[in-house]
């Protein structure tokens, strides 16, 4: 066996705040039977804890929406009865509910919609993971300390006086001896109470340490690169609820979706698919990315439907023969011969160029961010981020299914504290949804995976986008007839204010086309 000489080892472990880096909210856009929904779920950060669910019906007339907590380990049979969501006053299509998630690990919220068109259900993976490390706020601490002190000294006084004045017949005056005894008892009670407090504190500490034991610890990711620029990802899993080393399942046909984004400037972006070496090691042939430090985000789904984003960093040296000016797509002819690992055909990488207004030119295509230039994005608000692809003449270019969808997107905050891999269905993993739906006996509407059976592009050749611009209407008409699209949209709620970069990846003529846009997000206005 060839020894892998590791010449670059750099790994740092991020402190994660959730399975999804810095972006715990779950947004889903899809169907429940005949109804179309937009769901936003805020998972609990302690377990047992409350998940906040909001469901907007975007198509169809719903009369009732109910939600049900379903755990991977226990399945639909052992779930409690569904709870009715309340219709939000003033909005007939918006329903909200609070739902207890009681068991750690892979769990989900089943959404049941009843209305004019009957019943429809879907299931949304919502991990129940203890991620909170809560310190007591100083105000609460002060209030509790004062109350505690009153109880402490007050209790001792009461017991002291119990042995003194309280034993006297009403009206009798207390004598010195009795008073001294009362004081002595009171003071000794202070010591007894101190002992009780000490034991209480020991108890608290043991509860704290058992909480720590159950706290979510993400799979640790370590990356190293060898001479042939093969990067090895090592997944170190000490085990957690519904998760063990080497239990990854493919999502969109890939075990790992790895996003490499250059640190600070975020100008270089790669979406790669490492292949399995053994259950805890995955290899990927690196493209000719320029030297520098990269943030690595690896999206994985476990057998239980638990979806995680693993994080690490790596510093890359310059490739051996670096081209002076970096092209939009890196060439890889030289590497292919050196490495036994072949490149995954869906791997793609990209160098950011500043868009002109809301449009970015990539080769002969133009990607447009369908959003007013002065649009204000607000943290916590669910938005549909829509993009369309045209050619240089402004004619629509039909998108091909890329990994089963019309597009993929990655969103990163400037300081790398937020990362999310988005799909047209939202933040959820379709593989996770499938695993959880397997545990429910009812009819569950799953996300649609696009292929030639439901997205037929075979007759598209008749569309010749090089013809005159008046063809435009005709192309749209044909697209509509065949159910094809040149648009892709991603529902998402930015978790906090700041500068984000969003990469949008679509497939045209068998090639992945990537574009990048900068988005600035404001703080949510204070609700009074």
């Amino acid at each position: 066996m060839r020894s892998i000489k590791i010449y670059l080892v750099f790994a740092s472990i991020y402190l994660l705040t959730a399975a999804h880096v810095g972006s715990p909210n779950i947004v889903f856009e899809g169907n429940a039977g005949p109804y179309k929904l937009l769901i936003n779920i805020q998972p609990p950060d302690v377990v047992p804890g409350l998940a906040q669910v909001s469901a907007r019906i975007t198509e169809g007339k719903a009369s009732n929406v109910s939600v049900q907590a379903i755990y991977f380990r226990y399945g639909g049979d052992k779930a409690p009865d569904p709870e009715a969501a309340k219709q939000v006053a003033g909005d007939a299509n918006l329903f909200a509910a609070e739902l207890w998630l009681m068991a750690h690990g892979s769990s989900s919220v089943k959404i049941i919609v009843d209305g004019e068109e009957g019943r429809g259900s879907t299931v949304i993976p919502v991990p129940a993971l203890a991620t909170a490390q809560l310190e007591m706020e100083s105000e609460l601490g002060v209030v509790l300390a004062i109350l505690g002190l009153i109880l402490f000294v007050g209790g001792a006084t009461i017991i002291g006086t119990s042995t003194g004045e309280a034993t006297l017949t009403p009206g009798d005056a207390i004598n010195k001896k009795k008073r001294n005894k009362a004081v002595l008892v009171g003071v000794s009670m202070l010591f007894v109470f101190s002992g009780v407090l000490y034991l209480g504190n020991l108890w608290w500490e043991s509860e704290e340490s058992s909480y720590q034991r159950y706290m979510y610890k993400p799979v640790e990711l370590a990356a190293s690169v060898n001479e042939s620029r093969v990067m090895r990802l090592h997944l170190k899993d000490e085990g957690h609820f519904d998760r063990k080393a080497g239990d990854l399942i493919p999502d969109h046909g890939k075990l790992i979706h790895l996003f490499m984004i250059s640190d600070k400037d975020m100008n270089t972006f790669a979406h790669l698919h490492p292949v399995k070496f053994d259950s805890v090691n995955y290899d990927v042939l690196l493209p000719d990315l320029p030297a520098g430090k990269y943030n690595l985000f690896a999206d994985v789904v476990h057998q239980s439907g638990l979806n995680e984003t693993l994080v690490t960093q790596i510093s890359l040296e310059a490739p051996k023969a670096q081209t002076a000016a970096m092209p939009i797509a890196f060439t890889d002819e030289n590497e292919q011969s050196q490495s036994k690992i072949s490149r995954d055909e869906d791997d793609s990488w990209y160098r950011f160029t500043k868009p002109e207004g809301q449009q970015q030119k990539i080769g002969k295509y133009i990607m447009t961010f369908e959003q007013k230039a002065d649009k204000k994005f607000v943290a916590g608000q669910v938005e549909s981020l829509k993009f369309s692809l045209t050619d240089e003449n402004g004619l629509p270019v039909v998108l091909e299914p890329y990994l089963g969808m019309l597009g993929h997107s990655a969103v990163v905050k400037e300081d790398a504290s937020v990362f999310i891999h988005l799909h047209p269905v939202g933040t959820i993993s379709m593989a996770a949804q499938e695993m959880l739906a397997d545990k429910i006996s009812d009819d569950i509407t799953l996300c649609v995976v696009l292929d030639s059976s439901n997205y037929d592009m075979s007759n598209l050749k008749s569309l010749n986008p090089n013809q005159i611009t008046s063809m435009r209407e005709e192309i749209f008409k044909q697209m509509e007839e065949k159910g094809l699209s040149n648009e892709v949209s991603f529902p998402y709620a930015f978790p906090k204010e700041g500068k984000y970069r969003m990469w949008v990846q679509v497939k045209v003529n068998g090639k992945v086309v990537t574009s990048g846009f900068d988005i600035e997000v404001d703080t949510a206005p204070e609700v009074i």
Partner: protein
Amino acid sequence: MIKTTFFGSQAEKAKGVWFWGFRSPLSALFLVWGALAMLTSAPFDDWWHNAYGLDVKILSPPHALLAMGMLVIQLGAVIQLLTYQNVLKSEYEAANYEQKLILDKKFKRVKLMYVYTVGMLIAILGVVLTEYMNPNVAHASTYYKVGGFIFPLFMVSAGRASGLKFPITIAALFYTGINLFMLWFLPLFPAEPLLGPVVNEITHYVPFEFPHLLIVPAVLLDLYRNKTSFNNDWINAALMGTIFFVSFFVTQRYFSEFLLSDYAKNWVFAADAVAYNWNPDWQYRFEFYPWRAEEFPVLMKGLAIALGITILSSRLALLWGDWMRAVKR
């Protein structure tokens, strides 16, 4: 307390005690302390849930504070009755025959109410301590250490403080009655679990455990009190502690075996009742937990410590009983 301090007559004030400048009946101080402890536990518990998740168990530090508040309020009620009882007693001693007849009835009612509150207190404690004292752990010494500390403290002290002939027995009867009432009547009402996972399908309220057979040590303790009594309370404590420990150990050890057997799987003993979040097929459901089993020497040592604890608790209880007999404000 506020009323006595600011608006109380001289006579009312004289019935109170000093507390940080206030004048108040002692029982009111207990009530205030208990209420304050319960109030304090609320934000503490809320924080606890945010920090560590909802604790679906009886004992956690904030819950312990809440339970302490509840117990102290219950104690406040006990003291109120005791004060009344003791004041009545002084009146009774000074009264003539006719007055005595009138007081007799009143006196008896107050005495009964006092032992009722003791029974109620023991019932609350029984719920709080269930994690240490359920049939599945009744062969381990911890059971007898916890029981030997808590029960004599309330039972022996009640024996000393009450003027009744069989106060401990009556308190134990109240304790048993309250528990059996819940055990037999709650399961008649339909209920469904709203939290999951629902490992055990239930349709009605699930009854709590069958009460401890405290009636056995209670009768023996009362008999001891009525037949013999030494002037030295250390000897009394040693004997009463031993009586309690031996009778409690023997009854619970064998009764727990009965509760885990098929004979107890009926509505009377409700030993087959299991909550929604417990696996009904759990392999240790009707067994003494093997991980709590103790080797013979370890068990003997544990039981010896339990006996020591029981005797010390009885001594404390006698002291407390003396005080309860004396409290007048």
